[in-house]
C-alpha cells in the first residue's frame, strides 16, 4: 500500500522514541475491507458456467417480469390508477437479486423505489402498490413475508434493519436482514449511524446501495467525492463490495456471499451496485432537465434484462421457448395487475381512527363520531360518493 502523503512529507523517522501510546483497539487490517477498483461482473465469465442453471433461468424470468411490472405500473399512473410511481426500470437486476437471495426467514427493508424487490419476494403486487395508489400507507402485513414498509424518508429504514437483525441474533434466530438504499440516501446521517451500529454489534445485516447515479436530479459527483460508495465500509470496520448492478448474476453472487458472512456471525457488509435509473425519478419528474439523452442511451446498451438474456441464449441455457414463456408469463402478470388495479379500492374513512393507538383515545372516539355523522349527513344529501 502506498505510503500516505502526509507522512512522506513529514521529516524524520524512528530514532530514540519514548513509549508509544497504548493502542485503542487491535488495529485490524483494512485491506480486506476495501472494495476492488472495478465492479465485480459475472456475466461473460466462467461464473455463468459454474452457476446453477435453475437460478439463471429464475433470474431471467424475474427480470422479464420485473421489467414488465415497471412498464405496467408507469402506465397505471397515466390512467390515474396510481398517485405516483418511482420506476426501477434499468435496476431490475438489483431488485430481483435482492429478493432472490433471501431465505424465507430473512427480512427485506426496501426504500420507496423498491416495489419490485417486494413483489419479487412474493408479496401481492396490489398490496405493495397500495402506498402509491394512495388508499393506505402500507398495503401488506410486514410480518407475513418479512418485508418492512416501503420507506419514504430516505435511509431511515437502515437502522430498523440493524435493530431487527440484532434482535434476531440476541434471540439466537438464524436470519439476515437485507436493507436497500440509494446513492443519495448514503449522505443521510441515518446511513452512517446504521452502519456503525451494525458493525459494532456485528449484526447480521447486508446493506445494498443501488447507485443509479442520481438522487432525483443530483448526480453522484455532487453527492459524494469518495472513490466509490463501497469505500465507506472500511470506516465502520465492515467489508465494502462493488458490483455491476446490471449483472444480475454478479449481484446475486456478491449478495449471497455477504448474506453467508452475516449468517456465520461475521457481521455486516456494504455492497454498492453500480446501475442506472433509465426512467425519470417518478412519472412526475422531467429527467431531460438534468441529464442528456445520450447518457441514457449508453446505459440502455447495458440493459440488465438484455445482458442476461443474451448471455443465457448464447450459452444455450435459454432457448426460444424459454424467452417466449418468460414474456408470456410477464404479460399475464401485467394483465392481471391491470385488471385488479382498475377495480376501485374499497375505502372506509373510519380507518383513519382505527390504528393510531392500540386503544382509541376518548379524543379520537369523539373525532370518529364527528366524521361518522358528517358521512351520514352527506349520504342523505347526495348520491353515494365514489372514491
Amino acid at each position, binding site marked *: 500500500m502506498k505510503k500516505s502523503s502526509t507522512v512522506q512529507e513529514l521529516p524524520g523517522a524512528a530514532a530514540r522514541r519514548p513509549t508509544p501510546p497504548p493502542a485503542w483497539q487491535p488495529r485490524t487490517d483494512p485491506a480486506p475491507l476495501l472494495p476492488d477498483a472495478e465492479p465485480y461482473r459475472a456475466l461473460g465469465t466462467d461464473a455463468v458456467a459454474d452457476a446453477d442453471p435453475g437460478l439463471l433461468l429464475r433470474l431471467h424470468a424475474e427480470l422479464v417480469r420485473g421489467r414488465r411490472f415497471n412498464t405496467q405500473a408507469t402506465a397505471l399512473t397515466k390512467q390515474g390508477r396510481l*398517485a*405516483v410511481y418511482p420506476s426501477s426500470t434499468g435496476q431490475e437486476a438489483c431488485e430481483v437479486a435482492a429478493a432472490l437471495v433471501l431465505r424465507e426467514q430473512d427480512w427485506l427493508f426496501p426504500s420507496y423505489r423498491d416495489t419490485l424487490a417486494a413483489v419479487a419476494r412474493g408479496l401481492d403486487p396490489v398490496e405493495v402498490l397500495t*402506498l*402509491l*395508489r*394512495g*388508499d*393506505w*400507507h402500507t398495503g401488506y402485513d410486514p410480518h407475513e413475508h418479512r418485508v418492512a414498509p416501503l420507506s*419514504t*424518508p*430516505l435511509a431511515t429504514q437502515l437502522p430498523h434493519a440493524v435493530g431487527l437483525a440484532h434482535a434476531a441474533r440476541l434471540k439466537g434466530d438464524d436470519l439476515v436482514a437485507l436493507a436497500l438504499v440509494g446513492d*443519495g*440516501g448514503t*449522505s*443521510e*446521517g*441515518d446511513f452512517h449511524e446504521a452502519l456503525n451500529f451494525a458493525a459494532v454489534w456485528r449484526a447480521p445485516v447486508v446493506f445494498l446501495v443501488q447507485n443509479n447515479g442520481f*438522487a*432525483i*436530479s*443530483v448526480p453522484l459527483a*455532487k*453527492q*459524494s467525492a469518495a472513490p466509490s460508495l463501497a469505500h465507506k465500509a472500511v470506516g465502520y470496520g465492515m467489508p465494502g463490495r462493488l458490483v455491476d448492478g446490471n449483472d444480475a448474476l454478479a449481484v446475486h453472487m456478491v449478495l449471497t456471499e455477504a448474506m453467508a458472512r452475516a449468517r456465520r456471525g461475521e457481521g455486516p457488509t456494504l455492497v454498492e451496485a453500480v446501475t442506472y435509473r433509465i426512467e425519470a425519478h417518478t412519472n412526475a*419528474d422531467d429527467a431531460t*432537465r*438534468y441529464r442528456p439523452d445520450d447518457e441514457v442511451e449508453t446505459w440502455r446498451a447495458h440493459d440488465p434484462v438484455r445482458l442476461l438474456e443474451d448471455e443465457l441464449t448464447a450459452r444455450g441455457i435459454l432457448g426460444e421457448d424459454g424467452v417466449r414463456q418468460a414474456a408470456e408469463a410477464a404479460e399475464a402478470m401485467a394483465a392481471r395487475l391491470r385488471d385488479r388495479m382498475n377495480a376501485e*379500492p374499497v*375505502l372506509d*374513512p373510519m*380507518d*383513519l*381512527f382505527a390504528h*393510531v393507538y392500540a386503544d382509541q*383515545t376518548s*379524543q*379520537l372516539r369523539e*373525532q370518529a363520531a364527528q*366524521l361518522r355523522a*358528517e*358521512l351520514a349527513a352527506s349520504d342523505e344529501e347526495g348520491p353515494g360518493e365514489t*372514491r
Partner: protein
Amino acid sequence: MTTVAVKPATMAQALRRALRDAMAEDPSVHVLGEDVGTLGGVFRITDGLAAEFGDDRCTDTPLAEAGILGTAVGMAMYGLRPVVEMQFDAFAYPSFEQLISHVAKMRNRTRGAMPLPITVRVPYGGGIGGVEHHSDSSEAYYMATPGLHVVTPATVDDAYGLLRAAIASDDPVVFLEPKRLYWSKAAWSPDAPAVVEPVGRAVVRRRGSSATLITYGPSLPVCLEAAEAARAEGWDLEVVDLRSLVPFDDETVAESVRRTGRAVVVHESTGFGGPGGEIAARVTERCFHHLEAPVLRVAGFDIPYPPPMLERHHLPGVDRVLDAVARLQWETES
C-alpha cells in the same frame, strides 16, 4: 395595492420572483437544498436561479437535511444569508437538532454577537395527493421553539412580500409554503411587488361582525369561502389571516374578536397540540369578557396525515367551519 399593470400569477411564481429579486439585490443571499439547482426544485420554486446566479449562489447539496441546515449556519456565521429549501415538510425533521439547538439559539447564546439570518423554506400541508411524509403540517414544532420566526403566506402578494421580508430579516425565519396554494392564482403586479414590513402583522382579509375566523396559510381560502357561504345563514364572518405565527399579532386578533364576540380558529395541522390551542388560549386570555362562546377550533384530526384517497375527510373544509360557527352558542345571545 398598486396601480401598475396586473396579470394573474401563481404563488409559485411570486415565490420564485422573491428569491430572484433578493439574490439580485444582495450578493450574500445564497440558496441551497436538494435539487434546487439544475432542476429548479421539485416544485420549481428555484427554477432559473442557478442559471442566472451560478451554482455557487444556488447549490444542489448532498441529500442530508441536517447537513444542509448545519452548513447554512456556518455560512450565516460568515455573513451570508442562506435560504434553505427543505423538499417536503416531513423531510425537515432530520434537521430539527440544528434548528432547535443552534439556529434558534445562536443569537441569544452569543448575546447578539452571532445572529443567524437564515430562511428555512418548508413546503407544508396536504391537499395535493401526496403519499405519506409529504403532507405534514409541522408548524407546532416551530412555534414551540423560541428564537425562530414562523411565517406563512396565504396569497400571491404575501408570498412575495413575506419571503422578501423573511430573507431580509436578521433572525432565522421558518417560511412555511402552503403546497396546495402553489398553483393558486391571483392578479399580481410583478413590476412593483411589495415587501411585507414588518413581519408579525396579521391582516383582516374580510370584514364581518358576527364572528371571527382566525386562520393562516392553506386554510385561508377555505375560510373565505365559508364566510361567503355563511351569509346565507345570516352570519357575517370576519376572516383574519395571521401570516406570522411568531411573532404573533395579538393586537389585530384581539381587536377583531372583541368586536365580534365569537371566534373559530381554523387550520389543517392536527388539533391536539397544534397551533390552535395557543391561539385559542391567548385570544381567550385577552377577550374573555367579550366572548359569547368559547373559542372553537377546526383542525385536522389527531391522526397521522391520511393517504391521498382519504385526505379530503381530514382536511378542514367549508362545512366543518360552518358547523363550528353554528356551535358558537347563538341561542344564548340576543
